Structures are given as structure tokens and as C-alpha cells.
């Protein structure tokens, strides 16, 4: 069991959606035990996450950090769950489907589900949760996604059927509901101190900034699960301390393994590296309305100045996929396979810069250590770019305040994005002309149309074609350099069984209901 087993596959089959047939196979989806053993019950699973903060909250609609998300995953459930293959599967909803034009969806809830305090789950709870998610007062980070629901678009049809009308067609609406915010809470909840939800675990104790303990929910609707008696989640901010805790066997799972420690973990039989291909990526983004980045030749030149294979090796120790200067990762079904990979070509870059009148360009790149690999990536970029006579001076910015003061404000900076379940989300959030977080200030109406059309149609082949065109546009003309998609890199004790790798989030998307501890 040693070694880095279990990278999820590349090039998955085209995603089917809409008919929600996944609802039928729900039990099979989760913990098909990897070894075919029967799960043992009992024990307390200890999970060490990378950092904790006084901001820790039990309110799922306000969750921001991975730690918040992991807590919410134990206490609450969603209508729809994202499978490792990036298909939405039914969780609280046993089926879901859109109408032909894709602007109205019907969700049928499972019957017999109760909250931790015994109240039965009905459609009213779902409506309350969704309305809360888009209420201004909640200030939820997911509000933009839920604003797609029409003003009076949530209607109950009996106790167990929900009809949702959208402001515009969206073939990916179900996928939006897999986000870690979209949790269902009891109708009328304002105080989340008790963490009442429909999730596999109930809240036992919660100390913000320190840790939390959860105990098994005996009336969980997936009977038989969860297997462990308790889950304890706490934060160890220092990467070295986290690794030490794992090596000493004091915790079962750790998030964000330090790549420098990977070889050691692989060589230890009682430990396992848990690496999953993912769409998490760092960006070197240039504001396309600022000189010299307003010149497409300059942008293209800079895109040729990273040796991507070496980048993956040095920064991520091989735990990453090479990127092609757009935000869709190779393990996404909509990844444009026909687009050739960008090569490291300092000569071509030099020629382009000369043509643009910017030989021996000197630039300032703003970076910080706020995301793993960001600083190292900037350093490697600097070394590689020097071969074409381009001098990149790295301006080191403090981590706190990076998102509010540096990102989106400096003309050339490093950013990072977690994996979104569907390309529509990242393209809408960062690349369309009206995007809230348009790092590159890139505005192309033709591109906007591609994204809108792809969102509205339910024809798979057509969507692939449109997204491919969109990726090509960003690849050639956009202001972003995406050298790599880093893997989700976690680690755990070998005695943790039933672990399923997942491309989104960390630690198997924090689903611990299917885990058990062998002797």
C-alpha cells in the first residue's frame, strides 16, 4: 500500500448530465471499498488541515476556507453531489432534470430524511437555504451563483418537489449546486451554533481557531454509514509540523502535504500519498489594458518563456499537469485536446519582443506565499525568462491583504484558482468582459458569446466545440499564463480505508462518511 497509488484517470468520458440518473447509483458511488473488505466500525478519525483561523464558522453559507468546507461537509448535505468524474449525482435530491430550454429545473427530494434534531426534510428547508444564499445580508461568497435564480423562481410543488426558474438557460445549474456553500439548513435557522443539518455527523464540540469534533449521526439516511464513531478536525498551520504529526502516527489524514516530504512518505509503508489530478492552477496574469501587455506580441512572447515540464518537476515535484495558458484542466471532459501544448521557446520570444520593440524587457512580478508553490513558481519563471533577456523582478507582497490589495490591482501578478466543477464557472468569474474577478482586464464580446451559448445549450458535442474555441481564444490572445494544474496532494495513514480521491477541494472533497479504520 506504499507508494503513490490512486491518481484519478485522465481523459474521462464525456459527462452526461441532466437526467439525474445518478440518483439511483448513489450508494455504489461513494465507498466501494477499495480492497473489498467489509468496513470496520468505530474509532475516531483525526484530520489535520493546513491552518485554522479565528474566522472559523459553522454557517455553511458563509464558509470560506477549506477548513470551513470540511466541517460543513460533515454536518450538512446538498441537493446534488459532485462525483470524482465531475458528474453531478443526487444526494438529497433523488432526481433532477432541466426542461428542454434549460431555464427551468425540477428537483425531487428523497423521502424520509431527517435533520439531526429529528425534523423531517421538506422543500421549505431547501427554499429557505437558497433564498438565504442569495440574500444581501448574508454576504455569502456564493451569492453570484445563486443570483442566477429568477426573483421568484423557487417554488414548492408539494413537500418534496422543487421547481427552480432561472434568469437564463444554464445547462450546468445542477453542477452549481454541488459547491460547498449550497448546504441545506432547517427552515428559519439563524443561529448555527448547533450545526443542525442532514449530514453524516452531528456536532459535538467546536472551538474556533483550534478544532472541532463530530459524532456519528445514527439516523443518517445512507444507512450503515458513517463507519467511524467520531471525526476530529483541527488545523496545524505549519507544514513541517503537519508532516511530523502524520509521520508520528498522531493523525490519520493531513491536508496539503509539503511536496518536499513526498519522497519520505512514499518510502514509509505505514503511510500513503493521496494525490488526485485537479484543476487547481496558479496564474501569471497580465493586465491587457496596461503597456506593455496591451501588445499581443508581448503577451505571446512571455507565454513562451516557461519550460513547463521543468516547472512541474521543480515546483510540484511532478505532482501537477502541464497547463496550456487557459483555465480548463486536462482531466475536465471539456478540455480542448486538439489545442497543441505551448512549448518553451526563448528564441521565438526574443523575436516577438524585438518585433514589438521591447527587447530586454524588465518587468515587476508581484507574488506572495499565500498559495503553495506561488513563490517558487515565480522564481522558476524568473530563471527561465532570463534566457531570452527578459528580467523579471519579483516583488514580494505580504500574504495578508494579498487578495484585496495586490491581486486585481497590479499589472503583472500571480494569482490562483481552485477547481470549479464546470468550466462555465471559472470562465464567467474571470474571463468574460463583465467578470467580477477579471485578472487580465481582457474584454472580447466574441468570447462572451461563446460562453453564453455554451451555457444555454444541452447538446454535448456542441458544448465541447464552443468551449474548445473559447480555450483557443484565451490561449492565443488572452493575458494569462497558466503553466500547470497542481494535483491535490494530501497524505494519510495506510490504515485509513475507503478513501476516494477527488479533483475538487482537498482530502477527497472532505467526504469521510465512507472511511473506516482498519486495525
Amino acid at each position, binding site marked *: 500500500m506504499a507508494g503513490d497509488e490512486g491518481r484519478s484517470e485522465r481523459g474521462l468520458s464525456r459527462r452526461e448530465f441532466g437526467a439525474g440518473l445518478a440518483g439511483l447509483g448513489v450508494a455504489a458511488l461513494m465507498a466501494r471499498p477499495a480492497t473489498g473488505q467489509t468496513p470496520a466500525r468505530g474509532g475516531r478519525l483525526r484530520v489535520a488541515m493546513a491552518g485554522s483561523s479565528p*474566522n472559523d464558522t459553522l454557517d455553511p453559507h458563509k464558509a470560506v476556507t477549506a477548513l470551513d468546507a470540511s466541517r460543513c461537509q460533515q454536518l450538512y448535505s446538498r441537493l446534488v453531489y459532485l462525483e470524482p468524474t465531475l458528474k453531478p449525482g443526487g444526494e438529497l435530491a433523488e432526481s433532477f432534470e432541466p426542461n428542454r430550454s434549460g431555464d427551468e429545473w425540477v428537483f425531487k427530494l428523497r423521502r424520509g430524511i431527517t435533520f439531526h434534531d429529528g425534523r423531517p426534510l421538506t422543500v421549505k428547508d431547501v427554499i429557505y437555504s437558497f433564498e438565504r444564499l442569495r440574500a444581501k445580508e448574508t454576504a455569502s461568497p456564493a451569492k453570484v451563483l445563486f443570483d442566477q435564480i429568477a426573483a421568484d423562481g423557487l417554488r414548492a410543488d408539494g413537500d418534496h418537489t422543487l421547481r427552480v426558474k432561472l434568469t437564463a438557460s444554464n445547462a450546468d445549474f445542477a453542477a452549481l449546486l454541488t459547491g460547498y456553500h449550497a448546504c441545506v439548513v432547517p427552515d428559519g435557522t439563524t443561529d448555527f451554533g448547533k450545526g443542525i443539518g442532514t449530514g453524516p455527523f452531528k456536532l459535538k464540540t467546536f472551538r474556533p481557531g483550534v478544532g472541532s469534533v463530530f459524532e456519528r449521526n445514527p439516523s443518517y439516511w445512507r444507512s450503515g454509514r458513517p463507519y467511524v464513531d467520531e471525526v476530529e478536525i483541527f488545523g496545524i498551520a505549519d507544514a513541517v*509540523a503537519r508532516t511530523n*504529526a502524520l509521520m*508520528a502516527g498522531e493523525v490519520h489524514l493531513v491536508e496539503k502535504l509539503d511536496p518536499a516530504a513526498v519522497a519520505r512518505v512514499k518510502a514509509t509503508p505505514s503511510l500513503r500519498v493521496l494525490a488526485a489530478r485537479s484543476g487547481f492552477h496558479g496564474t501569471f496574469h497580465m493586465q491587457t489594458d496596461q503597456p506593455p501587455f496591451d501588445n499581443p506580441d508581448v503577451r505571446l512572447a512571455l507565454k513562451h518563456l516557461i519550460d513547463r515540464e521543468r516547472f512541474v518537476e521543480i515546483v510540484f515535484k511532478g505532482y501537477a499537469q502541464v497547463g496550456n495558458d487557459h483555465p480548463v484542466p486536462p482531466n475536465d471532459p471539456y478540455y480542448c485536446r486538439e489545442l497543441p501544448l505551448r512549448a518553451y521557446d526563448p528564441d521565438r520570444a526574443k523575436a516577438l519582443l524585438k518585433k514589438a520593440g521591447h527587447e530586454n524587457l524588465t518587468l515587476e512580478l508581484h507574488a506572495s506565499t499565500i498559495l503553495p508553490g506561488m513563490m517558487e513558481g515565480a522564481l522558476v519563471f524568473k530563471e527561465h525568462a532570463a534566457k531570452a533577456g527578459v528580467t523579471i523582478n519579483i516583488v514580494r507582497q505580504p500574504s*495578508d491583504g494579498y487578495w484585496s490589495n495586490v491581486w486585481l490591482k497590479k499589472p503583472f501578478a500571480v494569482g490562483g484558482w481552485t477547481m470549479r466543477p464546470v468550466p462555465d464557472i471559472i470562465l464567467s468569474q474571470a474571463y468574460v468582459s463583465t467578470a467580477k474577478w477579471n485578472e487580465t482586464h481582457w474584454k472580447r464580446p466574441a468570447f462572451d458569446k461563446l460562453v453564453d451559448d455554451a451555457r444555454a445549450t444541452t447538446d454535448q458535442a456542441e458544448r465541447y466545440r464552443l468551449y474548445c474555441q473559447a480555450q483557443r481564444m484565451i490561449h492565443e490572445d488572452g493575458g494569462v499564463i497558466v503553466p500547470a494544474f497542481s494535483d491535490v496532494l494530501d497524505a494519510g495513514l495506510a490504515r485509513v480505508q475507503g478513501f476516494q480521491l477527488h479533483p475538487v477541494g482537498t482530502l477527497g472533497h472532505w467526504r469521510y462518511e465512507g472511511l473506516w479504520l482498519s486495525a
Partner: protein
Amino acid sequence: MLGLLAQRFLFGVATLWVVSVLVFGATQLLPGDVASEMLGQEATEEAKQTIRRQLGLDRPAWLRYGEWLGDVARGRLGLSLASRRPIAELLADRLGNTLTLAVATALFAVPLSVGLGLVCAAYPNGRLDRLISHVSLVLISVPDFFIGAVLVVVFAVSLGLFPAVASLPEGATAGQLARALVLPVLTLTAAMSAHMSRMTRAAVLSVLRAPYVEMALLTGAPRRRLILVHALPNALGPIANVVALNLGYLVTGVVVVETVFAFPGLGRLMVDSVTARDVTTVQAVALIFAAAYVGLNLAADVAAILANPRLRFPA
């Protein structure tokens, strides 16, 4: 003497007030605020404004400070801006942890250091004295996180004798707690004991030069009696002083050790709160730090006064 103490006490309170003003002022200068840090990358202007309004951050600074001061005077520390839970709860937890570590370290390090200092003073320039001097010199010259890291690698990961991480899990027994504290205590002792032992040695030696000690010597008093009975009580002033300062350091300056061992103490709370721009928590913790410094300094002064009869009864 009572007058002197009262004066010091009042001055201490004034100091605390000034510190709180300075801290509040400083936090207002920090870029970003709790709303932007809370929302992180996914922040929208609208969401930030909503949160600011809910937390009352849109009111003027002097008003907020005044309110805070009023609350503190009545013994209420308020709510943490980040988690909206009472700070008193949060502090009680962390302060308890920090004090546990501080007391455990003090109980181990102080007798050890003072004892070593006395032994060195008894046989100055002897082999033991020089050995201890050299070893302690090396220990204080190496960064404390390095000592901590080496201890963890050797004793926790390789030998498995002690836990690598001292995060005090739920429901830990006293025995588990003790084991978890061993390595942090050793790390802190390494850093502090050199100062305390050197001071003890120097203080005792300087007292030993006094004429009345020579008298005792001439009357044939054994070395041990000389040191423990004649010299030590008079050297207590400076020794108490340095011990108090080190205790102050234990409460306020051990962030590095807390980080290495993931120990949930006040230091980490301070760092995390500044990062999260949780102004109310920062102020509360700063107040505790300052109170600890001031209080321990006061204790050190009192010890010095009590130990020195001349100061006790000023002419």
C-alpha cells in the same frame, strides 16, 4: 514602601492604557480589514460592505475605541470580529494553555538554572563551570525553532517517545498532556536557562565579594552554607528580576515554539488575529501581554525591594 508600590501600580495601569491606544491606532493603519480577510479571494465589494455594516465598522474610529474602553472598564472584552463569539471564552482557553506551558517550563527551568548557577558560583572557573558556560552559550546562540525541530525529529518522529504536535486534543488525560508538553518545555528551557544561570552565577559571585562574606569564610563556614545562607538571599534581587523577565517572555514571546509544535497558545492567537484583522481580539490579547509584562516587572521590583533591606526602609 507601600507608597512606592502604589505609585508603581498606578503607573502600570497608565501604561496599559497607553498600550491599548497605541495598539488600536496601529490596527487602524493596517491595510485591509476583517471583512476583506474573511471573504478572501472571493470577496465582492457588496459583500464586504455588508459585513462592515454588520460589525459596526463603518462608525468612526474614536467612537469604536471609546466604546471598547468603556466595555473593558466594566470587565467586558466584547466579541471577536472574526468569529462573533465572546473573546473572554476564546482567551480563557488560550490563556489557560499558555499559562500551563509557562508554569510547566518555569517549574522545570527555574530550579534547574538557578541550581546550575549556584553550582558554577561555588566552583568558579572549574571544569564544571566552564562546561556549563560553553554549553549554555551554544544553546542560546542557536535559533529556538532549530532546537525544537531537532527535538521533534529525534524524539517524536524517529523514537516516538513524545508527540510531534502539542495540540492538546479533546479529552486528553493529564498524562497525555504531560507528554505533549515535554518537548516544548525542553525547547523553551534551552533558550532561557542560559540567561538565568549566568545571572545567578554573577549575582552570587558579586555578593561573595562583600566583606561580611569574607568574615564568614574566616570563621570556617563551609562552601555550601556560605552560598545558600549568606550569599543567596542577597543575590535574590537580581535573580528574581531576570526570572520575572523570562516569565514575561514565556507568556508573550513564544510564538515560534507554538508554531513548531502547533500549540494553541496566546502567541499564535495574536499572529492569527492580526492576519485576520480581528481588531477586538488583537486589542484584548495585547492588553494581556502588556499586563503580564507590567505585572511581572512589578513583581520583580517588589522582590528586589523586599530582598534588599536598604530599599525597604529608604533613609
